[in-house]
């Protein structure tokens, strides 16, 4: 499976370039033009990352996180859920940049190849910011009756988080 994952990116890059060459596109010019967008995205992300990292480092160094984890662990141990993942599961549907920062911090703290680090990465990569998407799409058409669309959305989130934990533990 790791080998499969290793192959995916080089294969996709090669396919894109081959199609581009076959259709006589200036692939290098296009690449450079598009890559500029990447700088804009990262710069936009920087302030949020900074804010979240600041808060998380303070929570951790003060010892507050150990205290909270001990309290939460009493509950999560019953379901065999690693309590370190809980803050991520809570923030994930609410804030995209926030959950990215929390996930990154978990990976940095426990190591990206540890079980918990892998679970955090999977949770982060497996869904969008649910409440943000619902609010945005609902407001675009100005409807009153949401027909409880939030229920299937949250069920989907739960399903992918549980899958990540079961699959990687």
């Amino acid at each position, binding site marked *: 499976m790791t080998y499969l994952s290793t192959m995916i990116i080089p294969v996709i890059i090669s396919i894109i370039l081959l199609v581009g060459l076959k259709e006589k596109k200036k692939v290098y010019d*296009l690449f450079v033009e598009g890559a500029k967008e990447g700088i804009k995205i990262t710069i936009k992300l920087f302030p949020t990352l900074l804010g979240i990292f600041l808060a998380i480092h303070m929570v951790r160094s003060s*010892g507050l996180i150990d205290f909270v984890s001990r309290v939460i662990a009493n509950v999560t141990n019953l379901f065999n859920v690693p309590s370190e993942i809980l803050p991520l599961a809570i923030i994930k549907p609410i804030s995209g940049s926030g959950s990215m920062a929390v996930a990154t911090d978990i990976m940095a703290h426990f190591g990206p190849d540890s079980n918990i680090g892998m679970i955090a990465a999977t949770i982060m990569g497996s869904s969008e910011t649910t409440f943000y998407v619902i609010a945005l799409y609902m407001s675009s058409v100005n409807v009153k009756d949401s027909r409880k669309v939030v229920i299937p959305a949250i069920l989907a989130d739960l399903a992918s988080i549980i899958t990540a934990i079961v699959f990687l533990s």
Partner: protein
Amino acid sequence: MLNYIWPILIIFSFIYSIFNGNVDKLNNSIFESFDEVIKLSMTLVGTTCLWCGLMEIVKNTSIMTKLTKILRPIIERLFPETKTNKEAMDNITMNTISNFLGLGNAATPAGIKAMEALQQSNVDKKRLTDSMMMLIVVNTTSIELIPTTVISIRAALNANNPAGIIVPIWISTIIGTLVGIIATKILIKRSLKK
């Protein structure tokens, strides 16, 4: 939301560290956090640029139109209203492909245009249609072919194989999406009975 959570976390940490007697550690951690963000952003910029560059090539080739043809039957099944609403069809296709390729910037505008097109043929303008519900749910789970951000963060943290996370993410997203689609279908059926 973060306007409340963020200050509460910082203020509570400070108060807790006073009682815990490690204000010096707390003070150091403020500056350590900046170092870490800068290191992370340097790696992030590389991967993000690579992917945005490749996507620019994709947008200019026939890959896009080919994907549209493949997706048509699936989309008609999930969003029955697209059979009679061509504008909704085009925008939902664009939305799905952009999500799949991880182009958030292209996915959102297409999704919103699709919502507007569906609203045009909506009988009760104050109520979401079946297809609108499905579109929202599918966009909250959003299957991504290559989760670039996660991979670049793992690379920044020196993971053994940064891309090794792709398959676990696929499995977890696909199961989440399936649960979302089934739950939406059940919800739609139940509201018909009433």
